[in-house]
């Protein structure tokens, strides 16, 4: 943070506890009245005087100290009960260097970019504390202009005036050299490079702000979340120093369309409801971009489940699949029996009903490979061959065998145990490009999978020529298929406070942290259990290496108490969660100990005078 003043902000979660401060009045009165009660008539005063030297001034000071200690203890106790949100004492930045590169006068939208840049510089200057040193260096066509401020106000005006006076292309090399020399001062400097098109190779310790141009910016973040009532919202947060103006667009299986045009203040968030087309389902994506046609600056994805339970169509020869019907009946909580059915593989009219996803079926199971030309838009599970997921290996006969290995962490194979499964007539296939092999046997792939769209999975053997249907693995697999393909994301399940949490990322390294904060709480591969055990419910974000997926997996929907980090810092800066809690606990313990000591001392030495 640039130019942070010394800030001490305190917020109370239970301010009504401050009422207990009125106890200070009777305590103070008791101490004022008490000396009268403590006066004793003593005929043998000369004997007492010979025992102890009188120290009246010290005695008075000690009483005042006792009263102060008691009042301080009361204050701390009340504060502990009031549950302060936390306090942050930010150290002042010693020296702030603003390196400003104004846009070239002839650049496209140069005037607008210059005004945006001027606003950025102005806000940076406003945020510099009164005790901080600040220096503004403006790149010009010739030598950079250095503005050392005696006071902040005039310097801001000078900097803005310098932007207007720029006549030619800025010399970034000269600017970088000068800033680097200025930064080599005792105590270091906090360098902010404000540039419409920042060059590569700037020192990593510098804060680079690409403002005033339509370059990809890390300052905008999007979170897609499904609320408790099922509504879908997109929340865009501006983490940058400037007002962000752009659009949110929805990209799904339907055409790309605009969600909203936004203008978000720095540090603020906007929450926009995402309206889907009737019956729209599957993976959707909301992107933030400067315009509807620009490259996305940020993106968030979400899987929209179909309405209600899954409707499954089983396609079998003769329209009979009693075993599958029994198995699907066991999944009554996920399968809609009224909307599901069994069709003959020769029934062209029935098969044409699979051309549209979700209308009327959400999932199709083919007990024998379908016609490759058959248009199918719903997720499909195929038995008896790979179909489009692979091609037969010529010259190799079908063989029998079991499943040797399988991807245990894949969502489709969660809790699936293929070890007892054996089959015969396994067709040797070579997987096509982009197809994953989820299970493999001695003769080759046993389960092929393509994420889609539409997702497909294929067993290269017939169901009736294996014991798969008799094993729990098949029921579990069907359950996973219906759950995942049907719209449920297992990673979006409930997350209790203190419980491990699965990370919703398909593959690759994942970083998990509190939403909107930079700290990484957990880092690992997707599919691993989430080892972080949060002390309270809240929003967490999982970010993949591609920076595309930023998911919010808050089990109860969007936390209504959540606020953007900048706003939260301004209202009640929250210290590190665990540290703040420990601080409160320690303070409360200290207060109780102090009160106990005072009460004990009172009971021993301050009893009433006879």
């Amino acid at each position, binding site marked *: 943070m640039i130019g942070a003043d010394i800030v001490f902000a305190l917020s109370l979660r239970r301010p009504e506890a401050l009422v207990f401060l009125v106890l200070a009045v009777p305590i103070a009165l008791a101490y004022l009245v008490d000396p009268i009660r403590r006066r004793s008539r003593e005929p043998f005063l000369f004997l007492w005087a010979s025992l102890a030297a009188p120290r009246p001034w010290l005695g008075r000071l000690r009483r005042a100290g006792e009263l102060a200690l008691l009042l301080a203890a009361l204050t701390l106790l009340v504060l502990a009960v009031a549950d302060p949100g936390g306090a942050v004492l930010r150290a002042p930045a010693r020296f702030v260097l603003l390196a400003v590169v104004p846009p070239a006068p002839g650049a496209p939208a140069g005037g607008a970019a210059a005004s945006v840049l001027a606003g950025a510089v102005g806000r940076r200057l406003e945020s510099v504390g009164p005790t901080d040193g600040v220096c503004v260096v403006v790149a010009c066509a010739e030598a950079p202009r250095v503005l050392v401020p005696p006071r902040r106000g005039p310097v801001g005006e000078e900097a803005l005036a310098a932007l207007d006076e720029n006549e030619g292309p800025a010399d970034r090399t000269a600017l970088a050299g000068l800033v680097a020399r200025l930064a080599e001062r005792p105590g270091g400097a906090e360098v902010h490079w404000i540039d419409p098109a920042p060059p590569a190779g700037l020192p990593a310790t510098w804060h680079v702000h690409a403002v005033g141009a339509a370059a990809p910016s890390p300052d905008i973040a999007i979170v897609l979340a499904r609320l408790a009532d099922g509504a879908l919202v997109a929340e865009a947060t501006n983490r940058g120093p400037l007002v962000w103006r752009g659009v949110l667009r929805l990209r799904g299986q339907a055409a790309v369309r605009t969600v909203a045009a936004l203008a978000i203040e720095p540090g603020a968030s906007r929450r926009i409801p995402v309206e889907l087309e009737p019956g729209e389902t599957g993976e959707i994506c909301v992107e933030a971009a400067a315009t509807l046609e620009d490259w996305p600056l940020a993106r968030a994805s979400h899987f929209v489940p179909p309405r209600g339970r899954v409707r499954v169509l089983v396609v079998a020869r003769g329209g009979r699949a009693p075993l599958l019907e029994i198995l699907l009946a066991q999944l009554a909580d996920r399968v809609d029996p009224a909307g599901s059915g069994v069709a003959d593989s020769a029934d062209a009219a029935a098969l044409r009903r699979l051309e549209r996803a979700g209308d009327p079926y959400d999932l199709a199971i083919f007990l024998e490979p379908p016609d490759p030309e058959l248009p199918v838009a719903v997720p499909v599970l195929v038995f008896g061959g790979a179909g489009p997921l692979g091609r037969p290996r010529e010259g190799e006969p079908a063989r029998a065998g079991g499943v040797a290995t399988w991807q245990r962490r894949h969502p489709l194979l969660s809790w699936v145990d293929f070890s007892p499964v054996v089959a015969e007539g396994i067709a040797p296939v070579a997987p096509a490009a982009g197809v994953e092999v989820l299970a493999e046997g001695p003769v080759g792939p046993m389960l092929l999978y393509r994420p889609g769209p539409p997702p497909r999975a294929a067993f290269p053997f017939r169901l009736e020529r294996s014991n798969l249907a008799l094993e729990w693995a098949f029921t579990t697999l069907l359950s996973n298929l219906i759950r995942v393909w049907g719209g449920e994301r297992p990673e979006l399940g409930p997350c209790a406070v203190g419980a491990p949490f699965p990370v919703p990322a398909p593959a690759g390294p994942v970083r998990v942290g509190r939403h909107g904060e930079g700290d990484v709480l957990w880092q690992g591969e997707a599919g691993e259990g989430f080892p972080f055990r949060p002390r309270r419910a809240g929003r967490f974000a999982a970010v993949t290496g591609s920076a595309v997926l930023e998911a919010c997996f808050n089990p109860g929907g969007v936390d209504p108490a959540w606020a953007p980090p900048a706003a939260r810092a301004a209202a009640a800066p929250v210290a590190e969660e665990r540290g703040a809690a420990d601080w409160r606990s320690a303070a409360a313990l200290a207060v109780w100990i102090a009160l106990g000591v005072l009460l004990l001392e009172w009971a021993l*030495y301050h009893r009433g005078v006879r």
Partner: protein
Amino acid sequence: MSPRFALLSPECMRLLDRLEIAVWETRRGRPGGSLPSTSLGLGTRFEEHRRYAPGDDLRYLDWNALGRLGEPFTKQFAREEAGRLTLLLDRTASMASDPALESTARSVSALLAYVGLRTGYHVEVIPLPLSEEREHHGLGGFFGSGAVGELGAWIEGVEFGVPAPLFPAVRQAVAGRELGAATFLVSDLADPDAGERILRLLRAHRCQPALVQLFSPLARDPVPLGHRELLDPETGGTLRIRVTPRLRRAFLERLARFHERVRHRCRALGVRHVRLAAGQVADRAMVRRLREGGVLR
């Protein structure tokens, strides 16, 4: 039949009727021990006239009166050396710190005064410090059994709780005054030098001083613990102190040593010393204590 005396019960007065003040030293320093004579005519101080009776010593016949009046009168003289009893009654504020101290001081004073009157002493009660009103009213003058009731009322009327130090009060009271052969100081003796100066002052008057020291049982349970402001009721001095259990124990040890010192100084100066606990009434036990202390016999 004993005369009525509010401070003493009839039973106690009957007991006292058989006792007398023990005097073991005369004014001139000779060892004594006998009850001083109550008969008139043997003294040097003129007391009164009475009609001449056969057998009277003709040396005391008032010839002037006979010449002027024509009737014989005999001059009566009192033996003032052995016949005066002085009661110095401490009524300073320390004596008022415990009501029991005050009542015991009245009782023992009444007891001694009663015995004195019954045995022919001229009894004077001197409050310490002096009260102008009291001094004018009756200081120095009770004599005879008929004055018992009046003296008792006088003692009852003494007001305690005067904020004044004891030694200056004694010095003021005895200045220019001739004390009786039997002089009693009734006091708690809350004095920094354990009554040393007071006893020496009394001894300087060539009397037979006796100290009836009263002590309050409350002194054994001193001020409560904690930070206290102690106030000396006589001098008005204050002391801010933190009373701890250890300090209380030290104080009680000092108090015991103080009383021991008083007893030791009394013996060294030839002062009879009797200690009476506050709250003790004039009864057989008090009489026994006074007899054991050599005050009565």
